[in-house]
Protein backbone atom coordinates (compact mmCIF):
# COMPACT_ATOMS: atom_id res chain seq x y z
CA UNK A 1 0.00 0.00 0.00
CA UNK A 2 2.83 2.38 0.83
CA UNK A 3 4.46 1.82 -2.55
CA UNK A 4 1.21 2.93 -4.19
CA UNK A 5 1.24 6.01 -2.00
CA UNK A 6 4.78 6.79 -3.13
CA UNK A 7 3.79 6.56 -6.79
CA UNK A 8 0.71 8.66 -6.18
CA UNK A 9 2.78 11.53 -4.97
CA UNK A 10 3.35 13.42 -8.18
CA UNK A 11 5.31 16.21 -6.67
CA UNK A 12 8.37 14.92 -4.89
CA UNK A 13 9.31 18.39 -3.74
CA UNK A 14 6.07 18.48 -1.77
CA UNK A 15 7.10 15.30 0.01
CA UNK A 16 10.54 16.73 0.75
CA UNK A 17 8.97 19.96 1.96
CA UNK A 18 6.70 18.04 4.34
CA UNK A 19 9.66 16.05 5.66
CA UNK A 20 11.57 19.29 6.19
CA UNK A 21 8.66 20.57 8.26
CA UNK A 22 8.97 17.51 10.50
CA UNK A 23 6.41 15.19 8.92
CA UNK A 24 7.82 11.78 9.90
CA UNK A 25 5.54 9.90 7.55
CA UNK A 26 6.80 11.95 4.60
CA UNK A 27 10.38 11.25 5.68
CA UNK A 28 9.65 7.50 5.94
CA UNK A 29 8.20 7.56 2.42
CA UNK A 30 11.34 9.23 1.12
CA UNK A 31 13.46 6.58 2.82
CA UNK A 32 11.33 3.81 1.34
CA UNK A 33 11.54 5.32 -2.10
CA UNK A 34 15.32 5.67 -2.14
CA UNK A 35 16.70 3.00 0.22
CA UNK A 36 17.22 0.42 -2.53
CA UNK A 37 18.93 2.98 -4.77
CA UNK A 38 21.30 3.96 -1.97
CA UNK A 39 22.04 0.36 -0.93
CA UNK A 40 22.59 -0.79 -4.49
CA UNK A 41 24.92 2.13 -5.25
CA UNK A 42 26.88 1.60 -2.03
CA UNK A 43 27.26 -2.11 -2.82
CA UNK A 44 28.49 -1.36 -6.33
CA UNK A 45 31.11 0.98 -4.91
CA UNK A 46 32.40 -1.16 -2.02
CA UNK A 47 31.45 -4.68 -3.33
CA UNK A 48 30.63 -5.75 0.19
CA UNK A 49 27.19 -6.24 1.74
CA UNK A 50 28.17 -5.24 5.27
CA UNK A 51 29.77 -2.00 4.15
CA UNK A 52 26.79 -1.27 1.91
CA UNK A 53 24.44 -1.65 4.91
CA UNK A 54 26.59 0.67 7.00
CA UNK A 55 26.66 3.22 4.19
CA UNK A 56 22.88 2.97 3.89
CA UNK A 57 22.45 3.73 7.60
CA UNK A 58 24.97 6.59 7.57
CA UNK A 59 23.44 8.10 4.44
CA UNK A 60 19.91 8.34 5.80
CA UNK A 61 21.12 9.60 9.17
CA UNK A 62 22.89 12.38 7.25
CA UNK A 63 19.82 12.96 5.07
CA UNK A 64 17.71 13.40 8.20
CA UNK A 65 20.22 15.74 9.81
CA UNK A 66 20.82 17.84 6.70
CA UNK A 67 17.35 17.82 5.21
CA UNK A 68 16.76 21.46 6.05
CA UNK A 69 19.86 22.33 4.00
CA UNK A 70 18.31 20.93 0.81
CA UNK A 71 17.14 23.98 -1.10
CA UNK A 72 15.45 22.26 -4.04
CA UNK A 73 17.73 23.80 -6.68
CA UNK A 74 19.05 20.37 -7.65
CA UNK A 75 17.01 17.17 -7.92
CA UNK A 76 16.52 15.39 -4.61
CA UNK A 77 18.21 12.29 -6.08
CA UNK A 78 21.28 14.38 -7.04
CA UNK A 79 21.52 15.69 -3.48
CA UNK A 80 21.10 12.16 -2.15
CA UNK A 81 23.90 10.86 -4.40
CA UNK A 82 26.10 13.66 -3.05
CA UNK A 83 25.54 12.36 0.46
CA UNK A 84 26.04 8.70 -0.37
CA UNK A 85 29.21 9.36 -2.40
CA UNK A 86 30.59 11.44 0.49
CA UNK A 87 29.83 8.56 2.83
CA UNK A 88 31.61 6.11 0.55
CA UNK A 89 34.65 8.40 0.44
CA UNK A 90 34.55 8.91 4.23
CA UNK A 91 34.30 5.19 4.83
CA UNK A 92 37.32 4.61 2.63
CA UNK A 93 39.30 7.26 4.51
CA UNK A 94 38.25 5.99 7.93
CA UNK A 95 38.86 2.31 7.42
CA UNK A 96 41.86 2.77 5.13
CA UNK A 97 40.67 -0.25 3.23
CA UNK A 98 41.44 1.34 -0.05
CA UNK A 99 45.17 0.66 0.22
CA UNK A 100 45.12 -0.95 -3.20
CA UNK A 101 43.93 2.25 -4.83
CA UNK A 102 46.51 4.35 -6.55
CA UNK A 103 46.73 7.99 -7.47
CA UNK A 104 44.49 9.48 -10.13
CA UNK A 105 47.58 10.13 -12.22
CA UNK A 106 48.62 6.53 -12.83
CA UNK A 107 45.73 4.09 -13.13
CA UNK A 108 47.76 1.67 -15.23
CA UNK A 109 50.17 0.95 -12.41
CA UNK A 110 47.49 -0.41 -10.08
CA UNK A 111 48.13 -4.10 -9.81
CA UNK A 112 48.59 -5.07 -6.20
CA UNK A 113 46.04 -5.83 -3.53
CA UNK A 114 42.28 -5.63 -3.42
CA UNK A 115 39.43 -4.71 -1.11
CA UNK A 116 37.54 -7.71 -2.28
CA UNK A 117 36.81 -10.19 0.45
CA UNK A 118 35.35 -12.94 -1.65
CA UNK A 119 31.73 -12.58 -0.57
CA UNK A 120 28.81 -10.89 -2.24
CA UNK A 121 25.77 -11.56 -4.31
CA UNK A 122 25.35 -14.03 -7.12
CA UNK A 123 25.74 -12.57 -10.57
CA UNK A 124 22.11 -13.12 -11.41
CA UNK A 125 21.88 -10.98 -14.50
CA UNK A 126 24.81 -12.55 -16.24
CA UNK A 127 23.91 -16.04 -15.18
CA UNK A 128 21.36 -18.10 -16.99
CA UNK A 129 18.60 -19.79 -15.01
CA UNK A 130 19.66 -23.14 -16.50
CA UNK A 131 23.30 -23.14 -15.62
CA UNK A 132 25.61 -26.05 -15.79
CA UNK A 133 28.24 -26.35 -13.03
CA UNK A 134 30.79 -25.14 -15.60
CA UNK A 135 28.68 -22.04 -16.31
CA UNK A 136 28.42 -21.33 -12.62
CA UNK A 137 32.17 -21.63 -12.24
CA UNK A 138 32.77 -19.21 -15.12
CA UNK A 139 30.25 -16.75 -13.68
CA UNK A 140 31.77 -16.93 -10.22
CA UNK A 141 35.20 -16.42 -11.70
CA UNK A 142 33.98 -13.53 -13.84
CA UNK A 143 32.25 -11.88 -10.90
CA UNK A 144 35.41 -12.13 -8.82
CA UNK A 145 37.36 -10.67 -11.70
CA UNK A 146 34.91 -7.77 -12.05
CA UNK A 147 35.03 -7.11 -8.29
CA UNK A 148 38.81 -7.29 -8.10
CA UNK A 149 39.27 -5.04 -11.10
CA UNK A 150 36.94 -2.28 -9.89
CA UNK A 151 38.35 -2.38 -6.37
CA UNK A 152 41.76 -1.54 -7.78
CA UNK A 153 40.44 1.72 -9.13
CA UNK A 154 40.94 4.88 -7.08
CA UNK A 155 37.66 5.71 -5.34
CA UNK A 156 37.18 8.94 -7.33
CA UNK A 157 37.33 7.07 -10.64
CA UNK A 158 35.29 4.16 -9.33
CA UNK A 159 32.46 6.45 -8.27
CA UNK A 160 32.44 8.26 -11.62
CA UNK A 161 32.39 4.97 -13.52
CA UNK A 162 29.50 3.61 -11.43
CA UNK A 163 27.44 6.78 -11.58
CA UNK A 164 27.95 7.30 -15.30
CA UNK A 165 28.19 3.81 -16.79
CA UNK A 166 26.36 1.59 -14.31
CA UNK A 167 23.71 3.93 -12.90
CA UNK A 168 23.33 5.77 -16.22
CA UNK A 169 23.56 9.30 -14.82
CA UNK A 170 24.58 12.02 -17.28
CA UNK A 171 28.07 13.55 -17.16
CA UNK A 172 26.46 16.85 -16.14
CA UNK A 173 24.68 15.24 -13.18
CA UNK A 174 27.80 13.35 -12.12
CA UNK A 175 29.65 16.68 -12.19
CA UNK A 176 26.99 18.19 -9.93
CA UNK A 177 27.07 15.22 -7.56
CA UNK A 178 30.84 15.34 -7.20
CA UNK A 179 31.08 19.13 -7.45
CA UNK A 180 33.67 18.94 -10.21
CA UNK A 181 33.66 20.07 -13.85
CA UNK A 182 32.28 17.99 -16.73
CA UNK A 183 35.77 17.68 -18.30
CA UNK A 184 37.02 16.33 -14.94
CA UNK A 185 34.22 13.74 -14.97
CA UNK A 186 35.11 12.73 -18.52
CA UNK A 187 38.78 12.48 -17.70
CA UNK A 188 38.16 10.23 -14.67
CA UNK A 189 35.70 8.18 -16.68
CA UNK A 190 38.17 7.67 -19.52
CA UNK A 191 40.86 6.47 -17.10
CA UNK A 192 38.44 4.15 -15.35
CA UNK A 193 37.14 2.66 -18.61
CA UNK A 194 40.63 2.13 -20.02
CA UNK A 195 41.85 0.55 -16.79
CA UNK A 196 38.87 -1.79 -16.47
CA UNK A 197 39.04 -2.79 -20.11
CA UNK A 198 42.69 -3.78 -19.67
CA UNK A 199 41.86 -5.70 -16.50
CA UNK A 200 39.13 -7.64 -18.28
CA UNK A 201 41.08 -8.23 -21.48
CA UNK A 202 40.94 -12.02 -21.18
CA UNK A 203 37.13 -11.94 -21.31
CA UNK A 204 37.03 -9.79 -24.41
CA UNK A 205 37.94 -12.51 -26.88
CA UNK A 206 35.37 -14.99 -25.50
Amino acid sequence: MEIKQIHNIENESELVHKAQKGDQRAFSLLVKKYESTVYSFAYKVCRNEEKAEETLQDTFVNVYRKLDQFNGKAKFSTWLYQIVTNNCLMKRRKSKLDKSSISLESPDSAQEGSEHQGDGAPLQTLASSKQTPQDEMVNKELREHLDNAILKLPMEQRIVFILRDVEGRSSEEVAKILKVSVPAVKSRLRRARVFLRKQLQEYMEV
Partner: protein
Amino acid sequence: MKTKPVNKLRCNEVAKYVCENLDEQLNSRKCQAIKKHLQTCPKCSAQLNSLKKTVFLYRNCATPLLTTTDHEKLMAGLSLLIKKK
Protein backbone atom coordinates in the same frame (compact mmCIF):
# COMPACT_ATOMS: atom_id res chain seq x y z
CA MET B 1 48.85 28.30 -36.99
CA LYS B 2 47.95 25.15 -38.89
CA THR B 3 44.99 23.12 -37.67
CA LYS B 4 44.69 19.44 -38.46
CA PRO B 5 41.59 18.47 -40.46
CA VAL B 6 39.23 16.38 -38.34
CA ASN B 7 38.99 13.65 -40.97
CA LYS B 8 42.68 12.81 -40.49
CA LEU B 9 42.47 11.51 -36.98
CA ARG B 10 45.06 9.32 -35.38
CA CYS B 11 44.08 6.12 -33.60
CA ASN B 12 45.23 7.37 -30.19
CA GLU B 13 43.07 10.48 -30.56
CA VAL B 14 40.13 8.29 -31.49
CA ALA B 15 40.74 6.04 -28.51
CA LYS B 16 40.83 9.01 -26.11
CA TYR B 17 37.71 10.54 -27.61
CA VAL B 18 35.78 7.27 -27.58
CA CYS B 19 36.77 6.50 -23.99
CA GLU B 20 35.56 9.92 -22.87
CA ASN B 21 32.41 10.11 -24.92
CA LEU B 22 31.00 6.61 -25.12
CA ASP B 23 27.25 6.83 -24.53
CA GLU B 24 27.13 10.60 -25.00
CA GLN B 25 24.65 11.96 -27.52
CA LEU B 26 27.07 13.91 -29.65
CA ASN B 27 26.74 15.00 -33.23
CA SER B 28 29.67 17.32 -33.73
CA ARG B 29 31.88 17.39 -36.81
CA LYS B 30 34.59 15.64 -34.82
CA CYS B 31 32.16 12.98 -33.70
CA GLN B 32 31.16 12.31 -37.29
CA ALA B 33 34.83 11.98 -38.24
CA ILE B 34 35.38 9.58 -35.35
CA LYS B 35 32.46 7.44 -36.50
CA LYS B 36 33.89 7.39 -40.01
CA HIS B 37 37.31 6.39 -38.68
CA LEU B 38 35.76 3.59 -36.62
CA GLN B 39 34.09 2.17 -39.73
CA THR B 40 37.40 1.79 -41.51
CA CYS B 41 39.83 1.02 -38.67
CA PRO B 42 39.56 -2.55 -37.32
CA LYS B 43 41.88 -1.79 -34.39
CA CYS B 44 39.82 1.15 -33.12
CA SER B 45 36.61 -0.69 -33.82
CA ALA B 46 37.80 -3.66 -31.74
CA GLN B 47 38.77 -1.31 -28.91
CA LEU B 48 35.36 0.28 -28.99
CA ASN B 49 33.72 -3.13 -28.81
CA SER B 50 35.83 -4.22 -25.86
CA LEU B 51 34.98 -0.96 -24.11
CA LYS B 52 31.28 -1.53 -24.71
CA LYS B 53 31.63 -5.08 -23.41
CA THR B 54 33.39 -3.87 -20.26
CA VAL B 55 30.56 -1.44 -19.52
CA PHE B 56 27.98 -4.13 -20.36
CA LEU B 57 29.54 -6.57 -17.87
CA TYR B 58 29.42 -4.06 -15.03
CA ARG B 59 25.99 -2.76 -15.94
CA ASN B 60 24.58 -6.28 -15.90
CA CYS B 61 26.34 -7.43 -12.78
CA ALA B 62 23.50 -7.87 -10.30
CA THR B 63 23.63 -6.50 -6.80
CA PRO B 64 22.05 -8.10 -3.73
CA LEU B 65 18.60 -6.86 -2.86
CA LEU B 66 17.88 -4.97 0.32
CA THR B 67 16.20 -7.40 2.70
CA THR B 68 13.21 -6.71 4.95
CA THR B 69 15.57 -7.08 7.91
CA ASP B 70 17.86 -4.38 6.48
CA HIS B 71 14.88 -2.10 5.97
CA GLU B 72 13.62 -2.68 9.51
CA LYS B 73 17.08 -2.11 10.94
CA LEU B 74 17.34 1.16 9.04
CA MET B 75 13.91 2.37 10.14
CA ALA B 76 14.61 1.40 13.77
CA GLY B 77 17.85 3.40 13.73
CA LEU B 78 16.13 6.40 12.18
CA SER B 79 13.25 6.22 14.70
CA LEU B 80 15.74 6.46 17.54
CA LEU B 81 17.35 9.46 15.89
CA ILE B 82 13.99 11.17 15.41
CA LYS B 83 13.00 10.52 19.04
CA LYS B 84 16.28 12.01 20.27
CA LYS B 85 15.58 15.14 18.28
